[in-house]
């Protein structure tokens, strides 16, 4: 098992290095003149030269790469052109909103996906199964950005149930940052109205983000359930007359949950891609909106910084879910990969 964990760790470091390297070369070697990109389209020749010097872009590429990697090791992601602040500071400021949104979407992912997957397994090959399967495919196939806009149209434009965008309403002051998560802070500080307002703003982005990958959850839950439903001990449980509900929940579902741990790692990847568009549509002040703003303004330090940090998050979460999976099911470390 230790060998498995070490191997996974080495792989995680390799992926991080690879992603950082790709990000460097894409931003420094692909554009014909990165200094011109950084300085902007209206920059004069002198300004471009100044940028070239300030960013060390006049050095040979391998030396720039060395400085860049050295900076990364110390958590130095450079300055953002757009905000004139360190990229790391920007990421630190925008990250809590994304985590809040991501965790909420994970709740949706589990609360919608798990019961539907169980239903599909219990009524397999019957119409319930077909309906659930089609719903899952539809949720996965709908473009996230479009679903978000449609949610705004229906729940804000037509029904007036939920706010259009943003993280809190007009006249609601953001809480003192304790945890950095608005709705948690509101609750801790006892601002009930602000908490409800935050929750109402959170619903649509979280649901649209969670629905994007709910199809995987349904599919994996279903096949995992079916796998364990064939076990001998399940037949034994039925034979000794346990109620079907108890057999399904205690004997099948409990075991079937284990392989689903690695699905949560997958959900993180989907969230990290999804936040870029979802946060932009809902004007959610998170790291995805920050990245897209950086992209549209060619703020390369910010683009590279966010990519590296998001990759770090993805790699660490996947490493942890893999380890958690092996700890709960030691058989997995013998196989190639615990991924379903």
């Amino acid at each position, binding site marked *: 098992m230790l060998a498995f964990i070490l191997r996974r760790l080495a792989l995680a470091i390799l992926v991080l290095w690879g992603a950082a390297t790709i990000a460097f070369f894409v931003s420094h070697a692909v554009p014909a003149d990165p200094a011109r990109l950084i300085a902007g389209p209206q920059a004069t020749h002198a300004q471009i030269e100044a940028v070239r010097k300030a960013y060390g872009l006049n050095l040979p590429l391998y030396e720039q790469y060395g400085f860049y990697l050295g900076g990364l090791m110390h958590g130095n992601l450079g300055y953002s052109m757009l905000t004139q602040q360190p990229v790391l500071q920007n990421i630190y400021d925008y990250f809590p909103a994304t985590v809040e949104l991501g965790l909420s979407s994970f709740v949706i992912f589990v609360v919608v996906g798990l019961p539907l997957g169980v239903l599909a397994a219990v009524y397999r090959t019957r119409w319930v199964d077909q309906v659930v399967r089609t719903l899952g495919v539809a949720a996965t196939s709908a473009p996230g950005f479009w679903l978000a806009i449609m949610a*705004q149209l229906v729940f804000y434009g037509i029904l007036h149930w939920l706010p259009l965008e943003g993280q809190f309403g007009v006249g609601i002051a953001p809480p003192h940052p304790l945890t950095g998560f608005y709705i948690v802070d509101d609750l801790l500080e006892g601002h009930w109205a602000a908490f409800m307002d935050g929750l109402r703003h959170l619903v649509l982005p979280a649901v649209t983000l969670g629905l994007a990958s709910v199809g995987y959850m349904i599919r994996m839950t279903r096949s995992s359930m079916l796998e364990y439903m064939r076990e001998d001990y399940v037949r034994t449980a039925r034979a000794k007359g346990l109620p079907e509900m108890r057999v399904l929940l205690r004997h099948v579902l409990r075991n079937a949950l284990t392989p689903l741990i690695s699905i949560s790692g997958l959900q993180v990847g989907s969230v990290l891609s999804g936040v870029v568009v979802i946060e932009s549509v809902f004007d959610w002040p998170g790291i995805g909106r920050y990245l897209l703003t950086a992209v549209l303004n060619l703020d390369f330090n910010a683009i590279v910084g966010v990519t590296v940090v998001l990759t770090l998050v993805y790699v660490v979460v996947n490493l942890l879910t893999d380890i958690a999976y092996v700890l709960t099911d030691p058989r997995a470390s013998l196989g190639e990969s615990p991924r379903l």
Partner: protein
Amino acid sequence: MKAAAGPGAAERASAFTGRATRRRRLGRWRLLFGVPANLTGAIIAGLFLLLSAIGAVWTPGSAVNGSLTDVLQAPSGAHPFGTDDLGRDILSRVLAGAHLELEVAVIVLLVAGLLGIVLGLLTGYLGGWFDEVVMRITDIFLGFPALLFAVMLGAALGPSLGHAILAMSVVWWPWYARILRGQVIKLRHDQFIEAAYAIGASRWRIMMRHILPNTIQALLIQATLDVGSAILTAATLGFVGLGAQPPSPEWGAMVAEGQQYVLAQWWVAVFPGIAIMIVSIGFSLLGDGLRDVLDPALSPYTK
């Protein structure tokens, strides 16, 4: 019996048991199209191909030139999907866009598929350090969210449909290399490969004549499943402004154009989005169905 599942095997066998094989093959088609979900998928995919062919040569109105007297018209007999902010007929634009989406998906999947075939065959068959290096590269690519990379590359190269296609191809090939490699490793120790080796067939011949044809099926299933996600990714890049540029009738870019009007003129953003969703659903269902029928071992739905 694995060898019998390969393409051509059925024809060879039919010399002996023609009628039984024909019945079995018919059974396969019935298995595919007898399931409502699969049939729906096949119909959607077929209609999409047909409409993109039509949309490439003919649309009811102009997809690019609008008329300023018809700006933001609600759906009507003259404009079933309404018109956009430049007075262009949205139905025409959706039809013309179908061709564009299909083109993106086909190019990306062809490039990724060919790269995947070459690298998958080589890594799976040769093994050794080459395999190790290529697989670690795929680990890196699969190890971080693909959309982030595509967005980054799009920003570096400048926004255009061609660059979006390039970025997508770069993130797509590792999947195919992995699938091909897995298939090759599974086949390598099969008896018919050993037999070919025993009668003195060259490595090249074994690879091209015996292994490759047996992997095509898995590749086709994956490619069918991926048409939808390729279109989704292209549309997402188009939506954020890194894909097709105006006035191109790319569906994602059209949704982006309609976003600002959605609360009053819903039709501008609604119809291109529905088109993306339906096509994506269609290819998912068809791909799932093909996998159920052709390769039940891979399917999560045959248990």
